[in-house]
């Protein structure tokens, strides 16, 4: 018999440049907040899963899981760092959920962290390209923005995408970021400002890309019997699915879709036993503006080719029929790679508690989507209000 799992404590640093704070300090800050909020005694925490992509090359520090557990004064529990590029945080969450669900422990800690802004652009670009299959795509000179630039061009031809539709995604997420105290770059942008920013990978421009960030987020997961009355409002973990997609661009059946997202969404909805129409709020992997359109279609929220209209028509705004990235998403909240998947869950927990600064009213079910590499790793998680 498996245990039901809930998120009983959350913590997060602000996302964005944090000079003077190292990756361990950021991780400890988020984790300590999550543990305190949960009210769970540290000796009850039986496992730590740490999502991080690239701390070795960028900070010279590895074995982060054990080091952070040491700082937190946790017992000599299994401490595991997991890496799946931009999906590292989501994968860490899934493993912690499995540990509690399968009764390996009654409570587990998930931490995601990345420290990037101290490094030179060259170092960061080189580090990010570690997430590409460097036997094939890497040697061509392709970059991650490049992959999405190609997807954009194909989508444009196939569905008649306009610059204004994509800009609507950028404007929405950047404006959402203004209401999120943790966000790196909330801002009101005009179409002109977006369209006049420099090309990065045509047709993609600077404001279509998420910024480099520092940050950490943490969650305490627990079995029902550990939930304290009077503690933080728990949120149920209804599903956590992880899948693999093609490691190489040439292996993708379509540039406008990621097989790993389609498969993970299918598995997650099956596990949760709810429908797409039940989802009230979504935090998805908008590493680039066009990605939000592709992801929302891959998740099955609208037919192919329709994702582009939704932002322009306000349907994905807070108050629309499917609010997407009320946190500001990666575009505005920032993308400290290993922290992102955990941060998405942090934001969704606040929504389901009714306690978010950019609140989707009466949200009962939320979905998070975290995609890594060129679509090689994906997690989709579904959370539910405790009483829903």
């Amino acid at each position, binding site marked *: 018999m498996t245990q039901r799992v809930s998120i009983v404590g959350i913590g997060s640093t602000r996302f964005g440049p944090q000079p003077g704070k190292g990756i361990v300090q950021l991780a400890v800050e988020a984790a300590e907040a999550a543990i305190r909020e949960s009210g769970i005694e540290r000796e009850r925490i039986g496992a730590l899963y740490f999502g991080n992509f690239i701390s070795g090359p960028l900070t010279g520090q590895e074995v982060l899981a054990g080091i952070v557990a040491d700082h937190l004064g946790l017992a000599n529990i299994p401490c595991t760092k997991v890496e799946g590029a931009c999906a590292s945080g989501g994968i860490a969450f899934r493993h912690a959920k499995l540990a509690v669900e399968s009764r390996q422990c009654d409570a587990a800690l998930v931490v995601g962290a990345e420290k990037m802004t101290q490094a030179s652009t060259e170092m960061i670009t080189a580090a990010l390209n570690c997430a590409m299959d460097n036997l094939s795509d890497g040697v061509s000179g392709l970059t991650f923005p490049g992959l999405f630039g190609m997807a954009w061009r*194909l989508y444009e031809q196939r569905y008649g995408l306009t610059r204004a539709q994509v800009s609507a995604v950028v404007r929405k997420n950047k404006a959402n970021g203004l209401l999120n105290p943790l966000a790196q770059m909330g801002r009101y942008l005009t179409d002109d400002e977006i369209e006049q920013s420099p090309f990065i990978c045509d047709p993609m421009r600077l404001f279509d890309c998420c910024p480099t960030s520092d940050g950490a987020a943490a969650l305490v997961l627990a079995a029902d019997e550990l939930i304290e009355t009077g503690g933080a409002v728990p949120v149920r973990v209804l599903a956590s699915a992880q899948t693999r997609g093609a490691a190489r661009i040439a292996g993708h059946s379509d540039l406008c879709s990621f097989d790993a997202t389609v498969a993970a969404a299918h598995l997650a909805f099956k596990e949760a036993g709810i429908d797409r129409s039940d989802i009230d709020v979504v935090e998805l992997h908008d590493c680039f503006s066009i990605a939000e359109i592709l992801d929302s279609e891959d998740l099955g929220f609208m037919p192919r080719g329709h994702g582009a209209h939704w932002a322009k028509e306000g349907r994905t705004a807070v108050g629309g029929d499917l609010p997407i990235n009320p946190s500001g998403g990666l575009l505005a909240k920032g993308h400290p790679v290993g922290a992102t998947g955990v941060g998405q869950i942090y934001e969704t927990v606040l929504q389901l508690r009714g306690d978010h600064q950019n609140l989707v009213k009466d949200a009962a079910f939320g979905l998070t989507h975290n995609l890594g590499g060129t679509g090689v790793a994906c997690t989709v998680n579904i959370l539910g209000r405790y009483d829903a």
Partner: protein
Amino acid sequence: MPKREIEDCQINVLHCENCGTLDPGPRSLCPKCHSAELAEIAVPGAGTLLSWTTIRRPPTAFREEGPYHIAVVDLDAKLRVTARLTAPSPGIAPGARVLCVGTRNDVPVFQEIDA
């Protein structure tokens, strides 16, 4: 481009000696039947452009080359490759016919075939 020249342009790929699968490689096992009997063969370098972009902020290793163009091409030989694209015309769009005109670091370089 003269017909003769088009026939001369070839691209090296992996051919599974067991099941006949073609793959751009490099890899050591056939992605379909997992056989290790992979031989390099040349296939015609003509194909159709799936999409392309211009890399304006190259990774460190390619800094001196930027900006350059990257493409995904569907070869007539029925396999898809990530490649370079050279001198695209302003109006080039997915579906354009392209031809391999050489390699760079073993990566094929394609050029638009004049309509």
